[in-house]
């Protein structure tokens, strides 16, 4: 049976696919977006996070300075992020709330990291969920292997496809991948007539420029995709960088104001997209 590093599972998620959903976050991502709100999802390995807010200073003046193991930590301030789970373990968690999925047209969403980097795992897990009648969504940025998309294009009910920076060179520099390469997965899915919603994070100084968004809009339009979700920048990830002991490129940047978000919405509506703000 396949295994994957599961970063976290989140029940009662109201985003990322509709209805009440369970989100399964798989750890590891080929991209290194500087704004990533889940930096603990990037490395394909189990790592330790230190959350000062939970620390009761039982063994050291602060969580960062603590020499105890995460197994000792009484409150979970210092905790291992990620756990190897096999397909059946994940399926068991993912089917727990089936009664809620049914009542609200919800389901299960695989997210990450980049879940498509765990293609073999998904190929085993998703049919098991489908057999239980569960709606399955996958959130991807296109960074998984091409054959993985080919294998899953018919199995997945909804693809949440993130696009970020349309300029190829800029994408290489900032994200660590070519836009064309990422976009080719989207093309593949659309050719297979898979249901896709494109999602664009609005990040000041990176993605949230008129030129970038117009470029993305035009490329997506050519694929006859109808729905776009714009995800305004927020600072919920800030504390996590600290907890991981990492630098954060967007420290102190203000969350995006409503007006600015609305102006970006216009770009897409003018081009005939149905636009939703937030996931």
């Amino acid at each position, binding site marked *: 049976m396949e295994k994957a590093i599961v970063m976290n599972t989140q029940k009662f998620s109201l985003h990322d696919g509709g209805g009440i959903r369970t989100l399964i976050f798989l750890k590891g991502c080929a991209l290194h977006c500087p704004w990533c709100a889940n930096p603990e999802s990037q490395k394909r390995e189990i790592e330790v996070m230190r959350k000062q807010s939970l620390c009761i200073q039982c063994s050291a003046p602060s969580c960062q300075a603590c020499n105890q193991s995460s197994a000792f930590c*009484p409150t979970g301030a210092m905790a291992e992020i990620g756990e190897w789970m096999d397909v059946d373990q994940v399926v068991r968690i993912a089917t727990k*709330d089936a*009664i809620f999925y*049914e*009542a*609200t047209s919800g389901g299960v969403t695989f997210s990450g990291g980049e879940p498509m980097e765990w293609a073999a795992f998904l190929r085993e897990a998703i049919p098991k969920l489908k057999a239980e009648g569960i709606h399955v969504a996958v959130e991807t940025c296109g960074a998984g292997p091409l054959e993985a998309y080919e294998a899953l294009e018919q199995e997945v009910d909804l693809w949440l496809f993130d696009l970020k920076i349309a300029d190829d060179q800029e994408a290489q520099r900032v994200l660590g991948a070519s836009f064309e390469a990422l976009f080719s997965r989207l093309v593949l899915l659309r050719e297979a007539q898979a249901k896709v919603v494109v999602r664009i994070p609005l990040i000041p100084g990176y993605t949230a420029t008129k030129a970038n968004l117009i470029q993305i809009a035009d490329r997506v339009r050519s694929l006859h995709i109808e729905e776009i979700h714009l995800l305004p920048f927020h600072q919920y990830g800030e504390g996590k960088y600290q907890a991981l002991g990492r630098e954060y490129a967007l420290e102190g940047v203000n969350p995006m104001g409503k007006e600015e978000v609305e102006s970006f919405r216009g770009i897409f509506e003018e081009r005939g997209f149905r636009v939703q703000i937030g996931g």
Partner: protein
Amino acid sequence: MNRFEKMKQSLLAHPREISIERARYYTESYRLTMGESVNLRRAKATAHILDSVEISLREGEILAGNRTVKPRSGIMSPEMSPYWIYEERNSLGSRPQDPFVFNDTERKEFEEDLYPYWKEKSLKDKIEDLIPAEVQAARDTKIVKLNQTDKGQGHIIPDFERVLKLGIIGLLEEVESQSPQTEIHQAMSITLRAVSRHILRYGEMIEIEKTKRMDPKRVEELEELRHIVVRVATEAPQTFYEAVQLFWFINLALQYESNASSISCGRFDQYMVPYLERDLKRGLSEEKLKEILKMLWIKMNDVVLLRSQESAKYFAGFPTGYTIILGGIDAEGCDAVNLLSEWILETYAEIRLPQPNLGVRVNERTPESFFRKTAETIRLGTGIPQVFNDEVIIPGFLNRGISLTDARDYAVVGCVELSLPGKLYGLHDIALFNLLKVLEVVLQEHASKITSYRCLVDTIKATIQTYVKRMVEGSNVVDGAHAKFAPIPLLSSLMEECVATSRDVTSGGMKYNFSGVQGIGTANLSDALFAIKRLVFEEKQMSLEELQQILAVDYQGEEILRQRLIHRYKKFGNDQEEVDAIGAEFLRFYCEEVVQYENTRGGRFMPGSYTVSAHVPLGEAVGATPDGRKAREQLADGGLSPMVGRDKEGPTAVLQSVSRLDHTLLTNGSLLNVKFHPATLEGEAGIKRMVGYLKAYMRLKIQHIQFNIVSAETLRAAQAHPEKYSDLVIRVAGYSAIFVELNKRIQEDIIARTEHQL
């Protein structure tokens, strides 16, 4: 400001006072009836009150009937117990929870006249004399708490359908045509005739009021009201207006009789809708009919209960229990939602006060539109309506020998107590059983001798058995004392079975006679036992005795252990079968113990699990426990809710865990609190989500659920600026209350209950 907004404001503007009138006239009558039977004395006392209390009509009112001249005044029943009033007479106006001003003249009258008269003669005296020593010992451990030793029983739904169909004249005819005529019938007849006279007094007063008015519109209104009042003083109502007016007068009269909590309204939408439909057919305007409803909702908030300081801890915010249940299914099993069910939710949304305490019955046949309307009303954030599940409650009643037709007609009294209108006297709140306290006592007495987890479980079960038996004995003493010393002839006269069998409600006159006893602390017990199982018996980190010693000193010097117990061991409420199964096992055991016993009215004991706000005082009675809970900290709220702050997996996991408990067994009622952040329910998506969540709740066979939809920020702001939030209504437990009228401790409890969002 419209008429109702004005009335609502003036209702909340006055400081609450105590009105001594009821106590005065009751006592006056009792002095004159010495030597007569208790049935007649009680009937005559009620009649004297009805003939003597000052009556009033407030500005703008279109329904008559005020229990007290000043709004929201407390009335007293020293015949039940004069002691707490005497002890608290000087602090009632300043106590932290539910203060009432006791003015000097009336306080003096109480001290000098009423207290000396009732001292050593009250129901409380009689009960305490009869309590056996071992029951008293069980009370002293705080495992068992007996209720209703010092107040009227209430907790019943009169047969309002019958009342409206017959009118007072018809009720009297039924009583007086029974043969042979008994003293019980005579008592009923005395009270019914007094109700009729009482209503006629209103007719005369309105006539006088009318002459003082210049505004022709108001004069016309008063003339209509007078006409209606005079009619319903004897005749059966023909119109919706008349039906509501009679309904309200009967409610007030029942208050004078017993001053008891939760003489509830039952399925108001079912028995009132024929009148409404007839009026609509006759061409009456929808607006006018809705105004009558809104007026009634306001009036239901005018009646508040004066409780002792101790009782106010358990039932903070003076809930009266004008509980109305909407929807459900009819006698044939078809969907029973009607036009009035919807109107009630709509008109409530305009008034938004703690009463009526609305509940909605849902089942697989409930229309989507009614689910939506329910979700929209819940979203308003007042905690109303609460939701009850036909899919588990009806089978539960069948399992207790109730007929299918009767079970389908269930309704709710008080907070969440399951009852049958006009057919069931359930003594729903006769006792509380503190399951977590059992664990503490077991550890204190047996820790050194318990060598395995199984042994611990068995010892706890044996202890539950012992104390359930004592609780039953104690409850039966209280039950018997009410029958002997506090019959309620007026209430009994409204019940067909009581009239036909010539028996009072308190003496087994109802078709079904239960006694309801609550098992409290399931979540804490699950968490504590799971922690012991792991820490002591599997990981062998310490012996049970060592753990007990740490608990005995309230974790002093062991904060690391306490934190580990809180954070590193699974807890009830997170969809973890291992933990949830412990709670399920003990709750089932408790239920099966309880139903073996009979009460004094030929019925059985019924298990329930709801705390109202009792989880705070019940927690005060329990020392530190192995779930990381410190001594005197509250227990899990509600009854079935997870411990505050320990449910980390969100509201779907809460339902999954709670559904592992067998709700079919909890035939006395149960309670589950869930708190959502308002953002969760925003927009159309929010309504759909709530509808779906409710359907999942229904399919998971959970009995009851209620919601608080208000953000912690709003509640904090209300604490800081109570003057700006004088009408912020929130859910306490099984009932709603005005947030700023709750004491700090309960406010904090409500804020702390995990708020689920996104």
